[in-house]
């Protein structure tokens, strides 16, 4: 514990170096803006910021992206409460109590509760992250390829089962992503696969190209098909924030604590992110909270639960990323990309080789959360003003960032063509209700999944039962099966329930 605290102390000192501090503030501001704009999702924002980090050192680059990630979970809260415009799906639950509270003339108080929730949730999850990361990393050093395959498989199935919507579509999307990752020269045998003689395909398809295309271009095309229609913003008399008193906050301490823990756990589960965390905690509060009957009528618990969980999911999502090299969400997948672009492979070794950098990122999360709340408190008016910015202009610049982002990965026009192709795929997926997230995570985790699977098969003479016979991988495989079976049981239960009702 002493080691962790001393490393964290060094991390804080590093954070106060001008370069890190500047990028921390920039990341917080840009993340808040991304959270406000309805056409720009959190993941897309982080993806688009990635090319700007190519020329940076790894620490400020990761500090910038992490700051964007954390502040993006708060950015859309004011617009949800004041105008009923959730900048992100994360903030949809805030409409139910936050907007209702604002309609009752308590907008300032509702805004104060969101800041308080983001602060408490963020700090609790940051503490959990710092406490758990090093022990988890040390434990992960004992992992071999079967364990890695089991963890990756668990992550991929969680994306499918937690994503909602059609399970078959999610599976197709996932297999497509894994297949994209198999393009190029095979790592085990050196055989070219699905390359069609193209040199760029021989090198494989970069997951960033897929992300930029599917999330960026695909989304802009979808919005263009809807004519870039922005919901007109109502005029709100006062845009002040009134913080709740300590006594008021203490009265709902259980909501803060429960939501922070649930949010962090959901963040740790690969594939589940801030959106799921905010919906789940709102559901938990509605079912088990002290004032469950009043949920939806504009009470603080309805604001605190989703916002606390959304921000606390960030700390949770960083744990598997840094300790195992497995991204827990779309945004952490981009942060993983930033690490790889700078030649660092996150995982248990990173705590030994780059401890300073890791703890600077940890410290930046603490500082970032506090800064985000300060900026959120004072800059509410200019932040909300962003909504007046025409969507066609914002989207044009998003497209441009997509072009530059895809081109800069390998300085190749072929990557631009691939990005356009994945933009079309993203658009078609959106239209046909195929989720994009499983495809993207499949593309990212595909190489790790394949290499750990093939190495295990070679090492253990094609004995697939090894995944179940080793204790850690066995437990994870059982969890994977549960994650797969649960949604099926839920669906079966729903069908039976509907039949009984009719």
């Amino acid at each position, binding site marked *: 514990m002493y080691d962790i605290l001393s490393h964290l102390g060094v991390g804080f000192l590093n954070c106060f170096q001008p370069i890190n501090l500047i990028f921390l503030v920039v990341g917080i501001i840009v993340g808040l803006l991304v959270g406000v704009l309805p056409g720009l999702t959190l993941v897309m924002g982080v993806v688009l910021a990635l090319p700007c980090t190519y020329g940076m050192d790894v620490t400020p680059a990761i500090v910038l992206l992490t700051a964007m990630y954390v502040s993006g979970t708060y950015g859309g809260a004011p617009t949800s409460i004041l105008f009923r415009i959730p900048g992100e799906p994360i903030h949809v639950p805030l409409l139910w109590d936050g907007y209702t509270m604002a309609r009752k003339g308590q907008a300032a108080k509702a805004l104060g509760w969101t800041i308080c929730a983001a602060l408490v949730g963020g700090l609790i999850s940051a503490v959990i992250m710092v406490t758990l990361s090093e022990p988890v990393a040390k434990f992960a050093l004992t992992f071999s390829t079967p364990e890695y395959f089991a963890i990756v498989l668990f992550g991929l199935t969680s994306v499918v089962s937690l994503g909602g919507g059609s399970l078959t579509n999610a*599976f197709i999307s996932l297999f497509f992503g894994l297949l994209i990752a198999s393009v190029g020269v095979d790592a085990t045998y050196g055989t070219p696969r699905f390359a069609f003689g193209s040199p760029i395909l021989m090198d494989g398809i970069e997951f960033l190209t897929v992300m930029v295309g599917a999330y960026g271009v695909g989304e802009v095309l979808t919005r263009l*098909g809807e004519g870039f229609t922005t919901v007109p913003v109502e005029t709100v008399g006062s845009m002040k924030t009134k913080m709740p008193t300590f006594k008021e906050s203490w009265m709902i301490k259980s909501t803060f604590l429960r939501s922070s823990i649930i949010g962090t756990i959901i963040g740790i589960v690969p594939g589940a992110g801030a959106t799921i965390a905010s919906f789940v905690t709102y559901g938990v509060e509605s079912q088990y909270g002290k004032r469950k009957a009043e949920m939806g009528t504009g009470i603080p618990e309805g604001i605190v639960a989703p916002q606390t969980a959304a921000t606390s999911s960030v700390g949770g999502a960083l744990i598997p990323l840094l300790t195992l090299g497995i991204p827990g969400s779309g945004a952490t997948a981009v942060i993983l990309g930033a690490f790889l672009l700078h030649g660092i492979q996150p995982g248990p070794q990173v705590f030994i080789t780059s401890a300073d950098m890791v703890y600077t990122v940890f410290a930046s999360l603490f500082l970032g959360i506090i800064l985000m709340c300060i900026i959120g408190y004072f800059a509410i008016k200019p932040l909300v003003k962003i909504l007046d910015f*025409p969507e066609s202009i914002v989207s044009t610049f998003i497209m441009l960032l997509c072009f530059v982002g895809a081109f800069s990965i390998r300085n190749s026009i072929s990557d631009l063509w691939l990005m356009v192709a994945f933009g079309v795929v993203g658009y078609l997926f959106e239209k046909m209700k195929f989720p994009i997230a499983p495809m993207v995570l499949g593309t990212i985790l595909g190489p790790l999944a394949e290499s750990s699977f*093939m190495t295990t*098969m070679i090492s253990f003479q094609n004995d697939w039962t090894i995944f179940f016979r080793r204790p850690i991988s066995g437990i994870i495989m059982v969890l994977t099966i549960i994650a797969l079976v649960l949604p099926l049981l839920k669906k079966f239960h729903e069908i039976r329930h509907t039949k009984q009702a009719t």
Partner: protein
Amino acid sequence: MAMEKIKRIIPYAVVMLISIFFWVLACRFGCETRAGNLGPDFWPKLLLGLTMVVCLYEIAKTALFYRGNALKNDAGEEKAAAEAPKRYTGLLIIGALMTVAYVYFVTILGFILCTFLFLVLFMIVGRYRKVWVIAANSVIGTVLFVVIFMKVVYVSLPLGQGPFQQFSLLVLKLLGIK
């Protein structure tokens, strides 16, 4: 009803056909592996096989059990159609073509000129009509992108060919970028 079923089946049938095509390709990878070892085709074939199984399941489910919305009232459908947001298919096609055109022309015209034109045209296609705002955003946007990515981040963005390259070099010189 039958039409609705076919409509639902088509995407899965297309995915199935594509999977079969790639399966055939995977059979031709041609790598000699030691007897008993899994080859480089195993992983892609596993994924393609699973995709086909999922597609077959969805096709069979739709063909055998799908009851559709036919029994639901037509009034409901009409109401839903009336409530659906207005579609701008023309804009979408133009936007998609412009995206393709940008990628095609960026090596010929160079990043600077191509980006400026793209910014102007895409904002117009996006139904924005304030000419001065478009012009200002396009000029400032292009300059900002060039400075950030060519001077700060050192990305070697395309300069174009022939006279367009000369133009790009002139602009870079004016911006103080070597």
